[in-house]
């Protein structure tokens, strides 16, 4: 007899779990909180949105806006923020729809495909956030050089450009690392399993 066939017998004869749950215990479990990955992606996305936007209440935005006005950037900031909010809202809706669509009754591969799609939404969201930040920083630099153009010599202009460039890259780098850590931890295992399943279908 095949080795595994013998083990199959052992498997069949294995004792039931000593702790059997009663209907009441199952009822309690079914109504407790889920810790599934997709749910966390959704929650973290919402939290980020809320935290980022509540920063506006903490900082005195009046002053910042007068500063923008002096540089002639008021319109740019105003309209780009409207666009940014629309896009952010779109991402939140996508997060929610992804979360709703994912159903354990799909086949494992379809389920993972959907989760990977969620991952793509997250990645696009991160990319959007980072590029919006970069865009604002570049606009502010250009505008501040423009307004002070007559008081600055060439050397100072170059210094300002280099300093903002380094600052921008640094901030973007830290944020990128943060996102990688946050969502990377959640999605690493999934990605590995998905690749494993995808590999089977490709190689044969």
């Amino acid at each position, binding site marked *: 007899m095949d*080795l*595994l066939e*013998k*083990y*199959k017998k*052992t*498997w069949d*004869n*294995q*004792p*039931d*779990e*000593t702790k*059997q*749950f*009663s*209907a009441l215990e*199952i*009822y309690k*479990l*079914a*109504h*407790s*909180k*889920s*810790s*599934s*990955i*997709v749910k*966390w992606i959704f929650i973290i996305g919402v939290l980020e949105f809320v935290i980022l936007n509540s920063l506006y209440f903490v900082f005195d935005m009046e002053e910042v806006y007068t500063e923008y006005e002096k540089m002639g950037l008021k319109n740019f900031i105003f309209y780009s923020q409207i666009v940014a909010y629309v896009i952010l809202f779109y991402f939140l809706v996508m997060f929610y729809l992804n979360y709703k669509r*994912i*159903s*354990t*009754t*799909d*086949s*494992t*591969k*379809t*389920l*993972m495909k959907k*989760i990977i799609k969620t991952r793509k939404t997250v990645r696009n969201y991160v990319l959007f956030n980072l590029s919006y930040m970069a865009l604002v920083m570049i606009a502010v630099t250009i505008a501040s050089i423009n307004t002070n153009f007559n008081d600055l010599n060439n050397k100072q202009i170059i210094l300002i450009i280099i300093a903002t460039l380094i600052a921008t890259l640094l901030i973007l780098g830290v944020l990128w690392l943060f996102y990688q850590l946050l969502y990377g931890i*959640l999605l690493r*295992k*999934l990605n*590995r*399993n998905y690749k*494993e*399943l995808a590999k*089977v*279908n490709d190689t*044969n």
Partner: protein
Amino acid sequence: MQKDLETKFLSDFESNQNIAHKICRIYTTNQDAHNDLFQEITIQLWKNYSKFRGDSKFSTWMYRVALNTAISLYRKSTRTIKTQDISDFTYKIKATDYDNTEELQLKALYTAIHKLNDIDKALIFLYLEDKPYREISETLGISSVNARVKMSRAKEKLKNILNP
């Protein structure tokens, strides 16, 4: 209506809970992780129960949802692998038909399965549960030819671990 559905779910799940327990034994290595995964499986089953049309057996549907939860929706399972507690595997066998070799074999089998990756674990589990290839391929979402190929590789890996 909701009440009826819930009563039906509770009795269906209560009588089939060993499927979930076996999956927990395969994907976790200590009692706490076992209970956590069991809880997550229960949540996912209940969440999707209204979509269960009854065109397959409850147990067939349960295999799919429970495995999917273990493979892809559950967060903690990889972290606990290293803290293996041997005493958790001494599943008590009824005193009347006590057989030490059976118990040792079962322990060896579980230890070996724990060394496989998530997908191979699922394949081996479905093999041990004597599921037909049609069901295995539907559950995992791969063609049944690929399920066979993948299965024979997983079995080979398991044999090598059991009998190096």
